[in-house]
């Protein structure tokens, strides 16, 4: 019944929630955050239903307004898009839960516009992942980006400045995408992904299409903060309000990753071994460089959010590397890491949000064992996420690394193995720097008041994320076999 309409329902849920937000705000001071959480939950349920349907019955299309493609807008639910849909909505729902129940700073007089923007952004993200139309993708890209600028700029101090910088760069990225799209339209006369893929498959990638595709890739790389186009990310994530960062950092770049995977493997016929047009290799090298650069830059940071932001640059590098390897295991590693990293980063940024919320600050050199004593459960979650970032078994992070290394071996590139392993060590350096500070310091621990270990609504989101890291690690084979394997293209 509603099964065939699922692709549009997820997007509509958010759009309707955004429209209802002012009404909710008039009703009660806290209603906007409840509404946001409720619609996130609803969207999550619909995403799971979509995933279930694609896994059981295979991919299905949806013509919006019953206008047949290629003229009308087409939505597509296949294993790849359904997986990303679930990741986006799962993580954002958990963060929204935290935003409401941990009483974030954002609830207040500005909460109506704040949560309306959140809804628009999530709607945009879901739209990007759901659409099968290249221009429609651009529309959703801008919709989520504009809402994102507002969310990131909503903080105090330099937030507006950094968000403006992001706006300029983000718009340049979007312009690149649009420009490239123009080339593609000139070449093919179509904007529908399936259509473009068919036509290009017939006529091959001529110069016009190649130029267009390169423009598109540059635009998308900027959106996903792939080295050397990552400059906007550390500032934007550091200065933004805690809740905005926690919401955007885990999934914002992942949406761009989705676009990259979709275009590289499904739409544009680019052969991995084509040395005249070595997109895959460039992507892999940029990814490897990002891994090292991001990890090295994370080490000297004194602001925890900034450190995590640089670590995001590195993690995006892992994903780009996996995509660029163009082997089945590389692909699996990239997609699995999208999921794992979304959970890890959400957990880490929520911890920094807890630190800000409890007034302890996020300056790494100011952290002491008192932090751990005040937030024992959250700190434990942070440590688990950090271990997963370093990539020690049996946490989830270990297994994305496992598949990526297998992929590198598969492609015959021992060099990438070295990069991945070295980055593990660098991760260990900057995370253990914090762990050292919050666990060991000369305090007379037995004389202080007892630590109270309790599961409350304030740390429930963190605990959920941390435990799912363990589960995702232990049951990674299930995730890979039943969810990721169906989307792996033939290499």
């Amino acid at each position: 019944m509603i099964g065939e309409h699922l692709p549009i329902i997820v997007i509509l849920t958010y759009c309707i929630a955004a429209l209802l937000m002012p009404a909710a705000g008039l009703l009660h001071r806290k209603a906007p955050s409840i509404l946001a959480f409720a619609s996130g939950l609803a969207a999550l349920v619909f995403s799971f239903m979509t995933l279930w349907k694609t896994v059981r019955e295979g991919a299905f299309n949806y013509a919006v307004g019953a206008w047949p493609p290629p003229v009308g807008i087409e939505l597509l639910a296949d294993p790849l898009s359904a997986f990303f849909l679930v990741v986006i909505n799962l993580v954002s729902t958990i963060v929204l839960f935290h935003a409401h129940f941990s009483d974030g700073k954002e609830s207040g007089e500005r909460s109506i516009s704040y949560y309306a923007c959140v809804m628009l952004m999530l709607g945009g993200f879901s739209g990007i992942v759901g659409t099968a139309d290249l221009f429609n993708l651009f529309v959703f890209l801008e919709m989520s980006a504009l809402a994102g600028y507002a969310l990131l700029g909503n903080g105090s101090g330099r937030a507006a400045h950094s968000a403006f910088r992001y706006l300029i760069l983000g718009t340049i990225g979007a312009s690149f995408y649009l420009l490239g799209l123009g080339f593609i339209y000139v070449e093919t006369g179509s904007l529908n992904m399936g259509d473009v893929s068919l036509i290009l498959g017939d006529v091959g990638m001529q110069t016009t299409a190649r130029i267009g595709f390169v423009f598109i890739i540059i635009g998308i790389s900027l959106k996903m903060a792939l080295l050397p186009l990552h400059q906007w990310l550390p500032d934007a994530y550091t200065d933004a309000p805690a809740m905005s960062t926690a919401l955007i950092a885990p999934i914002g770049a992942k949406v761009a990753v989705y676009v990259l995977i979709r275009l590289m493997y499904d739409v544009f016929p680019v052969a991995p071994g084509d040395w005249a047009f070595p997109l895959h290799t460039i992507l892999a090298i940029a990814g490897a460089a990002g891994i090292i650069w991001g990890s090295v830059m994370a080490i000297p940071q004194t602001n925890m959010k900034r450190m995590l932001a640089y670590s995001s640059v590195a993690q995006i590098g892992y994903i780009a590397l996996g995509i660029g390897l163009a082997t089945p295991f590389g692909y699996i590693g990239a997609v699995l890491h999208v999921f794992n990293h979304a959970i890890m980063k959400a957990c880490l940024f929520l911890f920094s949000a807890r630190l800000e919320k409890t007034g302890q600050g996020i300056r790494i050199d100011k952290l002491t064992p008192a932090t751990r004593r005040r937030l024992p459960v959250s700190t434990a979650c942070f440590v688990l996420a950090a271990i997963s970032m370093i990539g020690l078994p049996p946490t989830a992070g270990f297994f994305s690394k496992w598949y990526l290394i297998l992929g590198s071996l598969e492609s015959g590139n021992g060099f990438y193995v070295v990069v991945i392993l070295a980055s593990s060590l660098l991760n260990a350096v900057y995370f253990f720097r914090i762990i050292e500070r919050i666990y060991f310091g000369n305090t007379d621990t037995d004389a202080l008041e007892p630590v109270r270990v309790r599961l409350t609504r304030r740390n429930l989101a963190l605990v959920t994320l941390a435990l799912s890291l363990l589960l995702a690690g232990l049951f990674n084979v299930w995730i890979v076999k039943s969810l990721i394997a169906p989307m792996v293209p033939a290499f």
Partner: protein
Amino acid sequence: MNAFFQASFLPLHAVLVSFLAVPAILLASRRPNLREGISLFAAVAKFALVLALLGSVLDGNRPVLELLQIAPGISLSLAVDPLGIFFALVASGLWILTTVYSIGYMRGNREGGQTRYYASFALSLSATIGIAFSANLLTFLLFYELLTLATYPLVVHKETPAAIRAGRMYLAYALSAGLLFLAGTIWLQSRTGMGSFTAGGFIAEGLFSSWELTSLFLLFMVGVGVKAGIMPLHSWLPAAMVAPTPVSALLHAVAVVKSGAFGVLRITGFVFGPETMREQGLDLLLACFAGATILLASIIALKQDDLKKRLAFSTIGHLSYIVMGAALASTAAFTGSVLHLSAHALMKITLFLCAGAIYVHAHKTRVSELDGLGRSMPWTFGAFAIGSLGLAGIPPVNGFISKWWLASGSLESGYPLVLGIFLLSGLLNAGYFFPIVIRGFFHAPAETEEGAHAHPASEASPWMVVPLCLTAALAIVFGIMPDFPLPFFDLARQIAESVTLSGPGLLPPSG
């Protein structure tokens, strides 16, 4: 759920019993007696479970438990073979004594952070038993990394700048090693599939070219060699001696370093196999490093004045005895190697426990301060003397037996030079240990200066003295009757034969 309680799950129970004790210990943080009670109970329960498995293994069973598939084609699985049960017996048996000792030490020293200490201790033991029972490389790696993480809080326990520095060094070494091990595991796995440990090795001929085999071997050896303290990968070990003495005792004489040595045995005997190693000349490569480590470590130990540092360098030397046996990989050498795993554990733990008792009771850490202390602490110094004799390889202490087999193994494999190394090392051992005993018993106490601690008049607390006397007594018992009360010799023999005789290697030696 019922299946969980069946006998086939015993290996898992043995791993989990101390793992489950961790939350219990954390919850009991305000009630020290309960907390220590839980630790002690978990230790005894773990030993009992391992003993139950021992019976089954001696009957010829090889319990295997596949838990779940953790990577495509690889399961997280536990298997109990003679080598695994051997190591598990040593680790879990000594944990009981160390726990008793810890209670005396931590209370006597009024250490802070005791809850964290007992929790990490229990977790380390879970990891160690996990390592012992790992059926394949990935499971091994999982527990190996867990052991690194669990022992890190123990190394930095004192939270002084020196301790934190030592912790960093430990992590840097251990995590890098883990990564190289991971690289080796993935590389091997991508060619051979599952990679379960098989006596005599499982790398089929022709899968790897000669240089690939050598690099693979190096990856694995650096991976386990850091924990086994093979030079030049040893520097973390002396630095980690800032940890409380029971930690040094159990972790740096038994669990951590022995996991490394155990890893060397697994890699040489159960992944590569003696035959492949000999064909590629890897045995000689490893033997060179081991031989150099034995001699260098002993020479460095000679000039250490800090008692624990001296013990640490002695540990480095003795670990390489085990490595040497694994490298030579004749039946006798492998037997000696495995035996030395337990023999050195017993003797070295005795020495560490003595060092701890001396520190807590008499506040002495330097060898030069020990003059005449043996008169007031006769039991402690007596035990120390027994441990020293054993490590120098003098009968009837158990160190003699393992060394005998190692020495005859070196002749059997045709490296008489190695015999020379063992004999020279025995002399050096005597050179750095006997002066301590002689100072303790025969030198007159130094004139006490103002403010310095005078020697106490009596023995240390029985919580500490009883365990260390027990380990010393056990070292003698096993020196006289290697198969009583636990069949260590029998097991070692079985292991060595399964490894060396599974391929068309050497002829079985007589006897």
